[in-house]
């Protein structure tokens, strides 16, 4: 297990390292001169001043040198400053990250509960009407664009019915974005749970458990669900990543003050330090979560745990 853990952490570190490489060179893919974009609005900045800025950002050095500078700063927690307003990127991201995580985790919880239960029921009643109803629901669920659903939910529950606030950061404001984000993911999770549980239900060991005379809940929960959890957990990490992605649009629709909305704004403003910071921060979270899920996986699966 320790070996597995260490291997997992090493590959996560490798991923993050490659991410930093990609990020550092992202700015060189941009057509045009980044410094000019940065100082576009100060109409009469002289070429000398631009050169000065280019130098202070290290953009006049070799790519390797730039990377060393970038990593040096990064290791000190310095992600640079935004082009618009010269705010600290790290600070901006850290301020909003809790909001994104709050939204994502609440949505994930909802999605796991609703998706998990309906997937389990559908698998148990495979081919019967509950299965058909639930699976039709999930197909529709995965086909609805979240932003569109968001707009409809917003106008229905906030404007027409006035049940929830339109925007803001309180718990009341969390409900609509979380539910919208969860709706689409619940459908996906429901389908994953269903197919996993169908595989599990076909296993011989359930026959063994039943042949022992165990009660239905014991067979279903202790034997089936516990075994099914392992493959399900392994895909949940991936679902979390998708969810973080989905949160970007949802944050935009519901004015939720998270990193995703910051990122969209940054893209429109071509604020490259902010985009770089966002990509790094985002992929680090995804990597961390996948490591965490792998640990959970290892913990749940005796085959790995016992090693």
């Amino acid at each position, binding site marked *: 297990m320790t070996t597995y853990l260490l291997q997992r952490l090493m*590959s996560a570190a490798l*991923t993050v390292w490659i991410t930093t490489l990609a990020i550092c060179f992202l700015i060189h*893919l941009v057509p045009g001169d980044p410094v000019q974009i940065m100082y576009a609005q100060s109409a009469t900045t002289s070429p000398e001043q631009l050169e000065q800025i280019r130098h202070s950002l290290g953009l006049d050095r070799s790519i390797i040198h730039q990377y060393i500078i970038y990593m040096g700063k990064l290791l000190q927690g310095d992600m640079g400053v935004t082009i618009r307003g010269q705010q600290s990127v790290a600070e901006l991201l850290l301020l909003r990250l809790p909001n994104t995580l709050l939204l994502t985790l609440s949505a994930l919880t909802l999605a796991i509960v609703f998706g998990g239960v309906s997937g389990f029921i559908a698998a148990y009643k*495979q081919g019967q009407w509950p299965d058909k109803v639930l699976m039709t629901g999930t197909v529709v669920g995965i*086909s609805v*664009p979240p932003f569109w659903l968001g707009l409809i939910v917003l106008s229905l529950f906030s404007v027409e019915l006035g049940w929830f606030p339109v925007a803001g950061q309180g718990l009341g404001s969390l409900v609509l974005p979380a539910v919208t984000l969860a709706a689409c993911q619940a459908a996906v999770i429901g389908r994953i749970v269903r197919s996993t549980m169908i595989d599990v239900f076909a296993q011989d060991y359930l026959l063994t458990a039943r042949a022992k005379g165990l009660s239905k809940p014991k067979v279903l929960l202790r034997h089936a669900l516990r075994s099914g959890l392992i493959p399900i957990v392994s895909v949940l990490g991936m679902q979390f990543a998708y969810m973080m992605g989905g949160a970007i*649009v949802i944050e935009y629709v519901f004015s939720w003050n998270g990193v995703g909305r910051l*990122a969209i704004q940054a893209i429109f403003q071509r604020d490259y330090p902010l985009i770089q910071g966002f*990509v790094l921060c985002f992929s680090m979270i995804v990597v961390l979560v996948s490591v965490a899920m792998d640990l959970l996986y290892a913990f749940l699966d005796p085959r790995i745990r016992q090693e």
Partner: protein
Amino acid sequence: MEQVIKTPSLSAGRLTWRPSRLAVLLGIVAALVIVALLAPLISPYDFEVMASGPRLSPPSWAHWFGTDEFGRDIFSRILMGTRLTLMVGLVSVGVSLGFGMLIGLIAGYCGGWPEKLLMRGMDVLFSFTEIVIALSLVAVLGPSLENAMLAIGIAAIPFYARVCYGAVLVEKKQVYVESTIALGASHFRVLFVHILPNVVPVMLVVATIGLSNAILATSGLSYLGLGAQPPSPEWGAMLASSKNYFQRAPWLLMIPGGCIVLIVLLFNVLGEQLRSVLDPRRKGES
């Protein structure tokens, strides 16, 4: 005998019924393709012409889906948008399927360092998540439908590569591969004549479902203003440019949104059907 117990829902009755449902779905897709190709001919109005009717008029006999803020006929725009939507799906799936399959085939069959290198690369790309790759690429390339398609296509490569890689690994372990090698066939022949036809059905299923993902993702980018630019009748862009008329003219929002749902639904259901027909391992699921 044991198989009878394991897959109780697999029955002759359903097997004969399924292809017919598949045929209906394929028929709808074919109809969509025809509509998309003939869009300029069958549109009641020119999709670009402004003031083809009064502005923001609700659906009527003259304008089935109403008109937009410029008085353009929404029905005609939706028809033209079908073409774009299908193109979006095909191009981005083409990109991800092409590269993904190539990577998956090579990595899965060759093993060794190409496998490590390629799949490690895919892992990294995967951990960026689709939307972040798409956003970064759009940030670099600038917002346009072409870039959005490309970005979504590139972002999905790791997924296709993994599926293909997994399928190749499964096939590679099959005895028929070894038996074909033992027969004296070259690696090239084993990979492309024997393994590939077994991988293609899986990939076809994945690609069909991927088509709907690509359409959804691209419309999402367009909605954020990072995809198709006005006056493109791409449905996501139509939604984006009309969302502020929601209270005044809800059909401007409901119609393109509904179209996205329907087309995505269509490809999702088609994918499921294809899977149940093409992928014997998955039989019994719907």
